[in-house]
């Protein structure tokens, strides 16, 4: 493998890892702060991709699809938290698993009623649709580079908000000790609602940015859900930095696994997960105790 091919694969790995991070960071935030395990997270990734397809088809603008898609997901997140999720706080994990499974069935069926079950393709915005010529017969699509850049900005924004702002402080305090935060007079219920909506919006955003380079299909949420779980298990639950590490690890393992060991590539990330479980059962950046 020459250097250029290696570079292309490395870019692919990073781009894949970045999108994974977007989705998984939403999942880990919701778990870390709300204490709720949300199996419907992947369904919102799928919903985001379908929203992107639908809005982009009707308006012809991918950027508009991105903004509207995230806004719709955020609003849906607020409503869902208010109606269902807030009844799950402090409840048993089994109850949370099953309620979110019920939500998946509902979301899947709503998607089928609204958008059907066809496979779709979404065009990236025209100014990002070209590709950069690397060598005579190798080129790299601009859109994939743009995803890397965009995801980096979002990741930086998440880190900035969590570590440098007052909202981030409240969120971190809530993750640390829920009761104490409430006792200090912070309206934690409102924080919960917004965190859940942001988590959902991040999942949808992942689905929106991936839509132009992958196809939009009904089962896409399931695969992403499993991958996000593996990311969270690798990185440590509730840790956004851990999600970043886990997502990049999976991006690298999956991409280079497909290059070097194509026959077993689909198993490799689980081998990686098993190894991390043997080494650090609470994740690479997880706390020693759960």
């Amino acid at each position, binding site marked *: 493998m020459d250097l250029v091919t290696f570079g292309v694969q490395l870019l692919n790995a990073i781009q894949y890892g970045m999108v994974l991070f977007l989705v998984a960071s939403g999942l880990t935030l919701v778990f870390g702060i709300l204490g709720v395990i949300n199996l419907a997270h992947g369904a919102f990734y799928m919903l985001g991709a379908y929203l992107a397809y639908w809005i982009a088809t009707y308006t012809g603008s991918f950027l508009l699809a991105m903004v509207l898609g995230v806004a719709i997901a955020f609003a849906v997140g607020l409503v869902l938290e208010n109606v269902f999720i807030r009844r799950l706080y402090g409840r048993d994990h089994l109850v949370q*698993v099953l309620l979110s499974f019920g939500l998946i069935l509902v979301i899947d069926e709503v998607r089928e009623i609204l958008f059907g079950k066809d496979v779709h393709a979404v065009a990236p915005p025209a100014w990002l649709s070209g590709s950069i010529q690397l060598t005579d017969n190798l080129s790299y699509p601009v859109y994939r580079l743009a995803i890397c850049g965009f995801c980096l900005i979002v990741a930086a924004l998440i880190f900035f908000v969590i570590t440098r702002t007052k909202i981030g402080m409240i969120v971190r305090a809530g993750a640390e000790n829920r009761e104490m935060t409430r006792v200090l007079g912070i309206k934690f219920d409102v924080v919960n609602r917004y965190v859940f909506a942001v988590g959902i919006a991040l999942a949808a955003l992942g689905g929106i940015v991936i839509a132009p380079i992958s196809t939009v299909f009904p089962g896409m949420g399931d695969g992403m859900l499993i991958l996000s*779980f593996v990311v969270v*298990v690798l990185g440590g639950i509730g840790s956004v930095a851990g999600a970043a590490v886990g997502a990049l690890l999976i991006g690298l393992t999956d991409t280079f696994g497909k290059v070097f060991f194509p026959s077993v590539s689909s198993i490799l990330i689980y081998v990686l997960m098993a190894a991390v479980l043997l080494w650090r059962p609470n994740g690479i950046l997880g706390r020693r105790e759960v």
Partner: protein
Amino acid sequence: MRGWLIPVVLLAAALALPFVVPTYYVQFASKALIMGMLAMALNLAVGHGGMVSLCHAAFFGLAGYVLALMAPGYDPASLLLTLPAAVLASAAAALVIGALALRTRGVYFIMVTLAFGEMLFFLFHDTGIAGGSDGAYVNAKPEIAIAGHQLLDLASPLAFYFVVLAFVVATVALLTMLVNAPFGHALAAARDNERRARSLGFPIFRVRLIAFVLSGALAGIAGYFAAAQFGFVAPQMLGWHLSATVLVMVLIGGLRSVTGPLIGALVLIVLEEVLKASTDYWKLVEGFIIILIVLALPGGVRQLWPLIVGERSDEAPQSRARSPVAEGRHG
């Protein structure tokens, strides 16, 4: 003796059923019993062991695939050969997954079992083993034959039903014995208060792993018969949607009982059948019903029983207030 009456009546009804209803319903009852067996197997891990597993469909499907792979073309496979092999495969998978997943607790355990279960799903989905994503056929149902004499042929719906029923009864007996044995008490102790159980000297990890493997092996028996009944295996048999559906059955039936999940399976399968027949959007309705059950009846549909019968029970409000797994050991 009232505690004996209901099971005996139910068993008698189950034995008499094939002689009073058409073949279609016998097959339907077999399917319900198979799913009930899977739900009871899962409940050993979830309800009795406090291990919320999302990979039991993988054990279920794996056993089915073993049958499909061992079946000799268009001839019936030998039950005495293929069933132990299938159960052994499921138990081995449960041993490996359990040993890794049991290093974690709570929500981690759920995520890890889900991921490993999906690994097996992708193994059969992406690679060419047994037809890849298209699945594979089990052309002839297994039989027991000695020196060319056929002693038992599962191709007959009646024989199939009774064999499955026998396995279900055996599963109920085994699980009841297990739950009431010192092993079951150790398992429950580990579920209710791990730290205390550990300090009392129970080998928590070993007890849990044994329960998990046993639960996986029982799921394998159910998967074997499911593959034999449908004559077809597909990767979806291993998918986590099935695992979650079976968890719903467990919750409907009640976490603390041995036979509850059997009833839960029956309730959910009949419900699905009715919904499929009455609306195109049955998944939407089913999703809402699941959400409703989870929110309103965390202790299972049994909670409705006192309301229907009019019996006054002080147990119901209590179990409503507490979360199902933290709940005491009654029932």
